[in-house]
Every structure is written in structure tokens, then in C-alpha cells.
């Protein structure tokens, strides 16, 4: 494939901040991205992930901190001089230009020769598998095809960095899976560096080499998908990564990172994630799929409702102290019945 990303060593965000009036949309975000990495900026809406991306692209001036590409400071450059490719949530294809013109736009602006433009546009069209659609207008394409044009347009200029702002959120579920694989394939093929904004943890887990979890404008955790999924550093990170159950308790006994937590009249074995001494109040975090009905289950709760999930059921239950639990079970538990639930010891985490 003829399209390769421009060379650089690293991109560095140094205490990047952005204020909107009195509100801190972005708070001292520091991050180093190495060449070739696929980074996902993950977080709930309003966490600052899109703000970060827009500051990187130059569409939004940062109010503090700096952005460095190798040793060159770039946060004072306008977007047209940064040379990053960007894929927008609504694609932002130029509606009056053909697919060919859209893809070639960045090259035309760089005053590349006509023959060279034709060659590289053809390469980009092949890369996103859109052969035969070159002369159509964006309005004549399906959502998935428009997305491919948007990606081709961003990568054809061979940018050091490709920025993607929730590119899959406007597609239906099936197409989303398909394009997800495509985005990863294109990233690998051109050896590029991608920063990808999403609020979908599954998307981030499947695509990224590293995930940056943001909340309220601050970085909460940076790590590999495996680290974030299995070893979230904070309770809010755990919640966002699918630890839907939070059960309050008290640390009874500690042995390294393994602890025994007292909950109501029972005890639960779990893994410590924050430094807590015996006697301290703690919160147990566990995923629904790691909370299984069992006769020796420590958590006793009354079933309030169940949902059919296909292979099994999702149950909702309430403990005597009012704590809500979500669990998976093979059989549909009748409403009002008592269940005993056992959190899997290796996958139950304890936070302060």
C-alpha cells in the first residue's frame, strides 16, 4: 500500500487545559503518544474527550499547557498548519464535491501535482475499498460509505496523526462492527498513529493499544485495555468499565492485595485496589457476570425483576440495606424470591 504515515517519534500533551468561562473542561491533561499507537480517549459525555481532540486539531485554542510534536511546540499553530487528519462525527464531507474531490482536497491545498493527486486518491480509494464510487456526490452514498470517504480524506495526506471523533456513533450496530475492524485495519496498514474519541468502552477495548479514561476533564487512568478492564485504579473507572455492582462493607482482614471484606453478616474475599487498612470502610465492585447465584453466596437479596438476554438472564435484586444488585443467572429467578449471590473472589475489587 502506497499510503504511509509521516514520521515522528512522539506527541506530548503537557498539562493541557481548557476553560469555558468559569468551567474547566480540561484540567492539566498530560499524555505521551508514541508513533504507531492507537489511543482511545474514553469517558462519559462531558468528560473532555472531544475538547482534547479539538485542542489537538487546533479547532479550539487551549487555555493552558502545551502540545509538542517531538520537540516542536504546535499548540499555537492554526489547524491548517498542523497537518493532522481528522474524521468528524457527522463525517463533514463537502456536499458539493465528488468523492474524488473530497479525498483529494487536502492534496489540492498542499499544491500537489495533478498526476500525483490522481495516484494517491486512487490508493486511498483502494485502502478504504470504495472503488467505483469516485464520481458520486456524498449525498448519494450510504452512511458506511460516507464514513470510508471521511477516513480516506483524512489519511490521504499521510498525516503524522489521525484524530477520530466518535466516527461510528452515526452507524447502525452491524455497520459499526464492520467499520471498527476497518479502522483498525487501515491504522495497521498505513502504520499510522490514531487518537480515537469514544464513549463506548467496548469500542475502546477492541480498538486501542492504550486507553485514556477521562472524567470531568481529568485523566483518571491510562493503560492497556487489559489493565483498564481487569485492574481499574479507581471506583469511577471501574464503574465505567462495567463494574455495575457497588456493595459497601468494611475491611476485616488484609493479606497483601487480598482482603476479606465484611458485608452485613457475611464475608467476601476480594482484591484490594486502593490502600486500605483493616477496619476501614470500603466498597466492593463487581461485574454482573461475576456475581453468580450459589447456595453458599454471601450476599442475600430479594429479586425485583429479570431480563432475558438470550444465553442467560440478567437479574435485579435488592439487599436488606437497600443496595441494588445486578447479576447473571442461567434460570429466570421469580420476582420476590430470595437469592444468595457469590462474587467471584479474583474479580471482585475493593476501593476506598
Amino acid at each position, binding site marked *: 500500500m502506497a499510503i504511509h504515515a509521516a514520521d515522528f517519534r512522539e506527541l506530548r500533551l503537557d498539562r493541557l487545559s481548557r476553560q469555558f468561562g468559569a468551567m474547566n473542561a480540561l484540567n492539566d491533561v498530560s499524555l505521551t503518544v508514541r508513533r504507531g499507537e492507537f489511543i482511545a480517549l474514553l469517558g462519559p459525555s462531558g468528560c473532555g474527550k472531544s475538547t482534547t481532540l479539538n485542542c489537538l*486539531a*487546533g*479547532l479550539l485554542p487551549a487555555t493552558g499547557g502545551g502540545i509538542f510534536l517531538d520537540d516542536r511546540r504546535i499548540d499555537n499553530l*492554526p*489547524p*491548517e*498548519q*498542523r*497537518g*493532522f*487528519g*481528522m474524521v*468528524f462525527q*457527522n463525517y*463533514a*464531507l*463537502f*456536499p*458539493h464535491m465528488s468523492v474524488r474531490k473530497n479525498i483529494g*482536497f*487536502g492534496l489540492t*491545498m*498542499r499544491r500537489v501535482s495533478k498526476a500525483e493527486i490522481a495516484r494517491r486518491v486512487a490508493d486511498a480509494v483502494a485502502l478504504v475499498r470504495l472503488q467505483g464510487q469516485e464520481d458520486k*456526490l456524498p*449525498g448519494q452514498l450510504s452512511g458506511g460509505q460516507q464514513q470510508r470517504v471521511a477516513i480516506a*480524506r*483524512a489519511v490521504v*495526506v499521510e498525516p503524522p496523526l489521525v*484524530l477520530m471523533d466518535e466516527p461510528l456513533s452515526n452507524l447502525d450496530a452491524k455497520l459499526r462492527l464492520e467499520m471498527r475492524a476497518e479502522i483498525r485495519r487501515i491504522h495497521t496498514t498505513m502504520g499510522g498513529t490514531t487518537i480515537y474519541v469514544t464513549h463506548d468502552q467496548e469500542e475502546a477495548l477492541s480498538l486501542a493499544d492504550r486507553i485514556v479514561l477521562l472524567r470531568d476533564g481529568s485523566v483518571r487512568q491510562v493503560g492497556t485495555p487489559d489493565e483498564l478492564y481487569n485492574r481499574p485504579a479507581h471506583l469511577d473507572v471501574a464503574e465505567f468499565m462495567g463494574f455495575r455492582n457497588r456493595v459497601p462493607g468494611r475491611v476485616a482482614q488484609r493479606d497483601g492485595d487480598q482482603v476479606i471484606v465484611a458485608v452485613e453478616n457475611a464475608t467476601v474475599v476480594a482484591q484490594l485496589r486502593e490502600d486500605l487498612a483493616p477496619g476501614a470502610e470500603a466498597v466492593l465492585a463487581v461485574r454482573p457476570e461475576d456475581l453468580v447465584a450459589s447456595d453458599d453466596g454471601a450476599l442475600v437479596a430479594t429479586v425485583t425483576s429479570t431480563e432475558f438476554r438470550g444465553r442467560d438472564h440478567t437479574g435485579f435484586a435488592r439487599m436488606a440495606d437497600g443496595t441494588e444488585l445486578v447479576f447473571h443467572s442461567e434460570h429466570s429467578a421469580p420476582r420476590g424470591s430470595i437469592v444468595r449471590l457469590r462474587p467471584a473472589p479474583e474479580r471482585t475489587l475493593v476501593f476506598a
Partner: protein
Amino acid sequence: MTALAPSLPQRLGLRMSLAARGVDTLTLLMLPAAAFLLLLFVYPFLYGLWISFQPKEGGAFANYGRFFSDPFLYDTIWSTLRLALPVTLVNLLIAVPIALRVRLMRRQRVLTTILVIPITLGTVLVAQGLLNYLGPQGWFNRTLMAAHLISSPVRLLHNYWGVFLSLLITGLPFTFLLTLSYVSGVDPALENAAATLGAGAPSRFRTILLPLLLPGLAITFCLSFVQAFSVFPSAVLLGAPSGPTRVISLAAYEAAFEQYDYGLASAIAMIMGAVQLGVVVVVLAGRGLLYRGASGGKG
């Protein structure tokens, strides 16, 4: 009861088939508007057309013949076009940059309100104001003279420029409002996308904004032009009604109310309409060559 039953499905059938074509009882609500149009536009137009073919003397086309053989009459077409076309163009040239700027402002409504006030004043009041403001003793000349930019007052009244300026002031708000609606219909993400692809501000305007705005600007041009073409009060009050600003509506007025020749006046009105239509058709035909699809925005 049994006798009525068979006819019921048939009646429903008719109503359903009408409804399928978009005709139902709601359609009746269109009648007042249709009557209004018929009484106040179609009838007077046809009546005017009819009496334009009934000259005081000569054949059916004598009024038209007279208009096109008398330079005092047919020159009004040019003097009106000479005013209306540049005024409309200058209006657009002013409105577009303002609209582009206003689109990005947070206090949009305040500025829009200020810019729109001239619409509410009416042409006569504006003409009256300009008579004082632009006169030899007016602020404008006195300010320029006090600043030693000119040694004697500039003549801006009772000539072409008086009418030009007045048309500009009364026409701009209208042009601006239309332009603003078209400008805010273009998705800002398109410009952002162009910027990340290396396009500076001038390139973004030339390659993205302008092509997407042109169809809307063509419509704006037509509407503003038609407004300017029917100029009358300011041409009389601020212009030289017997000279360079003898506009076509003035010729029609003189024929009707000074010579009491309604036939000729109607013929002039018809010619006026034809000229306007001609310009509009040319502009819209040009628009037909442009991209006219979605501009990717909320519009």
C-alpha cells in the same frame, strides 16, 4: 339504516382517494389565501394587462410602441437598472461578510435587531433623514470639512448617489437577514474539516463556503433586486427625478396621474414586470448550473 349502509363504503372511498392525493378538509383552509391572491394580484394584473392593450389612439400595441419609440420613456429602464443592479450587488457584498461574522457571535440577536431597524422605518422616513444628514449643511459634509478632508461640501443629494445610498440603507437589512439564514445553514464542521486538511481562511471561503452559499445568494439577489427595481419615493425625494434617477415607476406614475393615460401607465407597469422577470430568470438559470443539494447544516 339498511338503505344507507351500501352507500357508506362508496362515500368513504371517494374521501380516501382524495386524501391519498393530499386533498382533505384541511385543504379548504387554503381558500382564503387563494381568494386573496386572486382578488389582489391576479385580477389587477389581468385588468392592467387588458387596459394596456387599449390605448387612447392607435392599435392594440400602440402603448408599447410609444414606450419603445420615446427615449424619455425607454431610457427609464436603463436608469432603473443602473440603480438597482449595483445597489443589489453592493448590498450582497456588504451583507455576506457581516453575516459570516455575526454567525460566530454569541449576542447575535442584539446585532441582528440593530441591523434590521431600518426595515421598520420605511423608505420615506429614511429619505427624510438623509436629506438632513447628507445635505450641504448636514453632519456628513460638516464632519468631513471639519476634518479638512474636503474643502467644499460633496453633492450627495438630488443626484444618482442620493438614491443609491438610500436604497442601500433600506435594502441592506433585508439582504442581510436572508444572507444570514443561508450562511448559518452551512455546517461549521465543513469549514473545520477544510481547515484540518490544510485550507487557510481564504481557501475555505473560496472552495467550501462560497459554492455552498451561491444558490442562496442568487435567491437573495433576485429578491433584493426586485425590491430595488421598484424604487419610487427615494428617487423622487433624494434623486433627480427629471434626470439620471428618472426611474421606470416614476414614468408609470406620471402617465397615470399627470397625463391620466391609464393604458400607457399599465403598459409601463407590464414592461417593468417583464424586465424584473428577465433579470430574475437570468439569475435563476445561472443558479441552475450550481450545486443545490444539502449544505450539510441545520437548514
